[in-house]
């Protein structure tokens, strides 16, 4: 189900809730109001028992009584006649529904629409004509009546007392003397038809009243049905309250979009309505009271939904914030530096505008001596302060963000590739922070890749060197056995000796390869101790003494008298110097001097080894140590060719540095170490 129909369904259920609750509230309030003065007779359907019928009859009686007693309705005689004519016309309009007879013996006035003799005999007993079942008769002394053949006690019937008959009833009962209602001695009779029919020639009020009675029944039934329907809807909405909540959320969203400036006046008006309602509830007519109650209820309901769904957003969603927000959206499309400048201009511009506006209103309030304008002045000043506050707040967050970005770059520089910088998405420097994060991810990826490839390389070399060693062991072992064979021809023995030499070289090469790869990858373990660099060089030279004296080279060694203490791994440094001296022995031009100098300069100990090469050095300083990686331009026939690379990597791993300089035929190696301060 897609969301639209879902929303629609939610709306339908909410509508059920809305209508149902309205109906129920209205009916409850209405029912309570109606119940206090409801005419029960209307429910039984006996028209001649209803209050409206009784009032009608009483009014007719009153008309007859006034007419025959010449009682004025108003003081003006002409006007009085008009009224009387009107009332008489009303009597006549009833047609055959009503028989009336009135006679005042004092002035001999008679008013009737029948031959009274057939109905009322001289003794005063009444015989109703066919088709008539109701009468009310005043015989000059007291009232009698009959309905459906039964006598009617008009004095006992409280409902007649609430009609125009009241003065007559009380009069005859001998209470207050009032000349205008004095009908003593008069005869007044009203007879009503059993089945009231329509008068085709005029408007019969009795007929219309009876017809209304029919309607009332239907209306009541209808109202009852509507009430049940409303109750049903309400029950349904309670069952489907989840969907209603859903819609309430939508409603809340819609309400959330409405600005506070619009809500406040509505709230204000609501409060006024409430106050009026509380004060005037009993004076208002029922429909208005009920309606205002319902409206008030829904008003509270909307406020509740708004607060529940939007919280403080209700207060922050005002026109000022909306303007700031739309400005921000506008600003976001601009480059950072432009946006910042624009913001400053916008602030200054709007502040100036607000100051002018507040001045204008201030003047207006002085001129008009009106507090109304002054309120506007205050509002504009408040707005100005608020805008400034917003600007400063934004500015300080941006400064904070700059600090955080600086910290972040520092972290990245230190190699932290996991801590991410999370700026809020609408921060000025958000794009920058995102870019930094992306760069950081890139670095992390690159580092991880290179670590992985480095580890793979080391593993590969370790495995390969292990795998090379096993067959080499066999080769060396069997070559050794062959060498011991005595009855081989001399030239075969020579071949075998060459094989033995090469296998020895292969063994050396494998070991160097292995050592170098370990040093390069940082897998090698170092045992660092306090040692004397001068002594180490002397020992190494002493170790090589045989080869040096056999060579045609002269070693010029200059080492200071005192110890040159450094912290390093002696075994590894021995390898370094051994390699360097071996190189010098191998590649120096016969008869030249090899200079080995150790000098101290401040906290540095510097060893230089200089020799004159016996071949043309057609490579750069970088190339010579990277032979391991690159193709070799001058591969030698002895040694592994890795000597310098090992020397450089070992030196660096031991905490020193190794530089190579080539100047024509002069080959110069420079090693630098940190001197350790002697504690003693």
């Amino acid at each position: 189900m897609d969301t639209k129909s879902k929303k629609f369904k939610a709306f339908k259920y909410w509508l059920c809730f809305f209508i149902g609750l309205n109906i129920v509230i209205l009916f409850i309030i209405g029912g309570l109001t109606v119940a206090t003065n409801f005419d029960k007779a209307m429910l039984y359907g006996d028209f001649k028992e209803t209050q409206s019928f009784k009032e009608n009859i009483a009014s007719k009686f009153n008309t007859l009584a006034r007419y025959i007693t010449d009682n004025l309705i108003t003081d003006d005689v002409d006007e009085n006649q008009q009224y009387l004519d009107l009332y008489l016309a009303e009597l006549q309009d009833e047609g055959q529904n009503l028989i009336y007879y009135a006679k005042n013996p004092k002035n001999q006035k008679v008013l009737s629409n029948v031959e009274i003799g057939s109905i009322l005999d001289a003794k005063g007993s009444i015989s109703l004509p066919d088709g008539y079942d109701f009468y009310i008769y005043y015989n000059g002394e007291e009232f009698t009546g009959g309905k459906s053949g039964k006598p009617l006690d008009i004095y006992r019937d409280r409902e007649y007392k609430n009609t125009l008959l009241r003065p007559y009833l009380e009069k005859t009962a001998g209470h207050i003397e009032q000349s205008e209602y004095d009908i003593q001695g008069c005869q007044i009779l009203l007879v009503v038809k059993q089945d009231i029919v329509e008068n085709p020639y005029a408007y019969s009020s009795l007929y219309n009243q009876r017809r209304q009675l029919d309607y009332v029944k239907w209306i009541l039934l209808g109202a009852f049905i509507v009430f049940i329907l409303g109750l049903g809807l309400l029950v349904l909405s309670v069952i489907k309250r989840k969907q209603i909540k859903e819609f309430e959320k939508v409603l809340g969203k819609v309400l959330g979009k409405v600005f506070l400036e619009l809500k406040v006046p509505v709230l204000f008006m609501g409060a006024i309505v409430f106050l009026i309602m509380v004060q005037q509830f009993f004076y208002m007519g029922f429909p208005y009271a009920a309606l205002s109650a319902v409206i008030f209820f829904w008003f509270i309901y909307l406020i509740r939904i708004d607060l529940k769904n939007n919280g403080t957003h209700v207060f922050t969603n005002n026109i000022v914030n909306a303007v700031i927000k739309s400005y921000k959206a506008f600003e976001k499309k601009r480059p950072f530096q432009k946006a910042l400048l624009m913001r400053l201009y916008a602030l200054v511009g709007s502040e100036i505008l607000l100051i002018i506006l507040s001045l204008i209103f201030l003047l207006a309030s002085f001129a008009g001596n009106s507090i109304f304008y002054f309120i506007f002045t205050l509002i504009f000043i408040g707005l100005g302060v608020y805008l400034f506050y917003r600007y400063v707040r934004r500015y300080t967050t941006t400064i904070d963000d700059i600090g955080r970005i600086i910290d972040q770059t520092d972290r990245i520089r230190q190699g932290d590739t996991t801590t991410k910088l999370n700026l809020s998405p609408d921060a000025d420097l958000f794009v920058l922070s995102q870019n930094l994060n992306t760069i950081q991810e890139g670095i992390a990826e690159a580092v991880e890749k290179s670590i992985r490839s480095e580890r793979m390389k080391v593993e590969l070399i370790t495995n390969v060197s292990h795998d090379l060693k096993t067959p080499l062991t066999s080769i060396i072992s069997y070559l050794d056995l062959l060498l011991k064979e005595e009855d081989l021809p001399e030239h075969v023995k020579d071949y075998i000796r060459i094989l033995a030499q090469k296998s020895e070289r292969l063994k050396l090469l494998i070991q160097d390869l292995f050592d170098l790869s370990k040093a390069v990858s940082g897998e090698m373990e170092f045992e660092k101790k306090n040692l004397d660099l001068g002594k180490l060089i002397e020992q190494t030279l002493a170790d090589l003494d045989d080869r040096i004296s056999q060579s045609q080279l002269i070693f010029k060694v200059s080492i200071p008298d005192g110890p040159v203490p450094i912290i390093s791994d002696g075994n590894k440094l021995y390898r370094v110097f051994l390699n360097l001296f071996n190189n010098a022995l191998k590649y120096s031009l016969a008869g030249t001097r090899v200079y080995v100098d150790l000098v101290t300069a401040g906290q540095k100990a510097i060893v230089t080894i200089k020799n004159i090469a016996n071949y043309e050095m057609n490579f750069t300083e970088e190339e010579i140590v990277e032979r391991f990686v690159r193709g070799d331009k001058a591969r030698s026939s002895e040694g592994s060719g890795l000597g310098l690379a090992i020397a450089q990597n070992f030196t660096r791993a031991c905490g020193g540095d190794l530089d190579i300089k080539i100047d024509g035929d002069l080959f110069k190696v420079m090693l630098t170490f940190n001197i350790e301060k002697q504690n003693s």
Partner: protein
Amino acid sequence: MEAPCILVVDDDREIARAISINLQNEGYKVIEAYDGLQALEAISSQDIHLIILDIMMPKLDGLSATMKIRQEKNIPIIILSAKSEDSDKILGLSMGADDYVTKPFNPMELMARVKSQIRRYMTLGDVSMKEKNNRIIRTGRLAFDTETRTLTADGHSVRLTATETKIVELLMKNLGRVFPAEEIYERVWGEVAYSVENTVMVHIRRIREKIEINPSEPEYLKVVWGIGYKIEKI
């Protein structure tokens, strides 16, 4: 006395065979095995005097085999491995091996080590009984008699010159201590030392040639680079 019996264990049959031939040439009786389990089987069924054991083998590796063997027997074990790291050597020796030779090895060196181990294993019992008054200083294969001022390696006496004897005496009496060349010179020659590194080194190298199995990879008389010289305490 019957020739000592040596068990050669290596999954590479060619290497095992080459070692066997070398050992047989030296007059030893040799049994070959090609994995750890076979080795254990051979040890339980035969009278073995020395084991040459590879580490990386199928079924049961050399280190585990060493541990199993050490639970029952005191036979010398020489580990033979392509693993050449110091940490590998330390691990092998601490598991109970008596010596550690890395591949590729020099057959002559291996033979020398085998002889050394066999000699010590066969004669150790009565030699240690004779030692009295702490007059003999012992480290590994070396023994120095402080009264007669003679050095023996694997029970064979080593011929040393007077200066060499003095150096050995100094270092043996202070096993493990590192002596700078100057100190050695002053105490042995009795003169003020000046630029004596070469002189001392020459003597050290000569002594090594007499006492070490492989003089270029000394086990006892070691250089501590940048400091001095010492005889290792084993």
